[in-house]
């Protein structure tokens, strides 16, 4: 695995197609987070600084980071489609890599991107936390620490879908357009035809729900929040967000989608002419 990652890094580090989207990701994220800290919401009972106090801060930073997951997916689509257009997948097999190794190399790269994304989110959360938290609120640091983990699952899920699309289509532009169109409007339109019970299990819905927007209502009232799914009233997790389905369930479904995307990708890579 180490050798496979070394090979992937050799391809990346001098490539503008990596540095440009990666820099955009980091700069835009920092920029948006900074802007959000400067916004004052004039709403009765709500102090906008509450979004930057633990444990709410994790929700804010992971939600903001999720806006830019598309860039991670685009990077993966560029790299994989490049391998087809440069015919380097084919050359790697000729030189001695197995098709399984080609697959594992890309999965390892996606894991590295997801870990790097999470690390960046954690660093920015701590830096932001320094400006807004007191010793009392720092003690709530660990209350929602599962959110960066969920963000990791989300980033990896988007990249897995991107990998599957690019292995099926083999063309960078067509893959990116397909991914974006599926994200919006194809899946939202399809979801309209299904009842609530089903629409929450569509891939993009499941993946995007992993990092929902900070719950303004709950933060402002600091009361227990209730959600209704198909007529059933359920008690949501305290201090976070109005999940459509419980977060753990949503995460499990997302992991299931990841397994499906990766299995299809592996099968396509195994069977297709390179």
């Amino acid at each position, binding site marked *: 695995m180490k050798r496979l990652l070394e*090979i992937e890094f050799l391809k990346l580090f001098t490539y503008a197609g990596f540095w440009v989207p990666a820099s955009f990701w980091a700069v835009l994220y920092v920029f948006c987070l900074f802007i959000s800290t400067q916004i004052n919401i004039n709403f009765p009972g709500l102090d906008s600084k509450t979004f930057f106090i633990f444990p709410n801060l994790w929700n804010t930073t992971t939600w903001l980071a999720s806006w830019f997951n598309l860039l991670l997916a685009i990077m993966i689509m560029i790299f994989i489609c490049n391998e087809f257009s*440069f*015919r380097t997948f*084919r*050359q790697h*097999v000729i*030189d*001695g890599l197995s098709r399984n*190794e080609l697959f594992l190399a890309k999965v390892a790269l996606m894991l590295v991107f997801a870990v790097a994304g999470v690390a960046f989110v954690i660093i920015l959360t701590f830096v932001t936390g320094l400006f807004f938290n007191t010793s009392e609120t720092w003690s709530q640091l660990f209350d929602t620490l599962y959110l960066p983990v969920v963000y990791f699952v989300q980033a990896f899920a988007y990249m897995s879908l991107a990998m599957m699309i690019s292995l099926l289509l083999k063309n960078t532009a067509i893959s990116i357009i397909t991914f974006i169109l599926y994200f919006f409007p194809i899946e939202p339109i399809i979801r309209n035809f299904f009842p609530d019970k089903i629409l929450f299990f569509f891939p993009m819905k499941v993946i995007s729900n992993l990092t929902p927007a900070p719950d303004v209502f709950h933060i402002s009232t600091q009361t227990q929040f209730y959600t209704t799914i198909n007529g059933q009233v359920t008690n949501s997790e305290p201090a976070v967000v109005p999940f459509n389905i419980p977060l753990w369930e949503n995460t499990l479904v997302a992991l299931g989608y990841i397994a499906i995307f990766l299995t299809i990708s592996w099968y396509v890579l195994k069977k297709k002419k390179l």
Partner: protein
Amino acid sequence: MTAEILHIENISKHYGAVEALNNLSLSVSGGQVFGILGPNGSGKTTTLSIVMGIIYPDCGNYLWFNNTQNNNNKKRIGSLIESPNFYPYLTAQQNLTITAKIKEISSSDIERVLKITGLYERRNYRFDSFSLGMKQRLALAAVLLGDPEVLVLDEPANGLDPQGIADIREIIRNQATLGKTIILASHILDEVEKVCTHVAILKKGKLIKSGKVHELLSANEQIFLSSDRNTELFEFLVRAGVCKNVTTIEKGILVEVQQPFDSSYINKLAFENGFMLNTIETRTQSLEEQFLKLMKK
């Protein structure tokens, strides 16, 4: 006995309705320079792509080094199939570093292969700045990385100028003298005749001829004869039935003899039947002439 390097057994491959290979069987032994000949679409590249694992055959199988198929076999092979495939934004050196990592060999060998292929001075230039000939040389450098036992080359002289072609031929010859097994697909017949010891000729996915190059050439030797009575000599030779083919050409007669008859037998036969030959000379058909003849059949 030399070890068998590659064994291909009854491989067939279809692309839709097109039959690319039909029950192809071949065997390549250690130390051979094995040429695979055929016109465009005859199945040369498909054969090499199958044995290098890029495409799967519909049926049949192949075996490298008498081993079961595994990727460690490929680390003993250097291969160039069709066109050079590298990352355009990386330099020659960086591209070869990736190849070295895949083959699990030391990067120190890169300098050696760049020198052999004459690219050492250009090692820090990006691949997309290279001419077609330089790209081909870089591909050859990648093939030579790690000093593999077997070289598989598909049209290695593609896009090269005459000097480049001569250089590639020289490299192939040098590798052959080092005892390397070389499998070379080409439609430049002159090239194959000059460097190969063995040859297989494909037509529409079928093997139509294979064997040692010199046997193939001598099997169809032609003898040019002339005497003062060419017309009578021609009729006599046709009647004698020792020749496969007798044709009258300008100032003489061209005959293709059947084995085991040769030029001295023809000379003796003509003399005993009252013909004094003014000229008798053996003419070997070039591989190109033989190839074209086979393609017409």
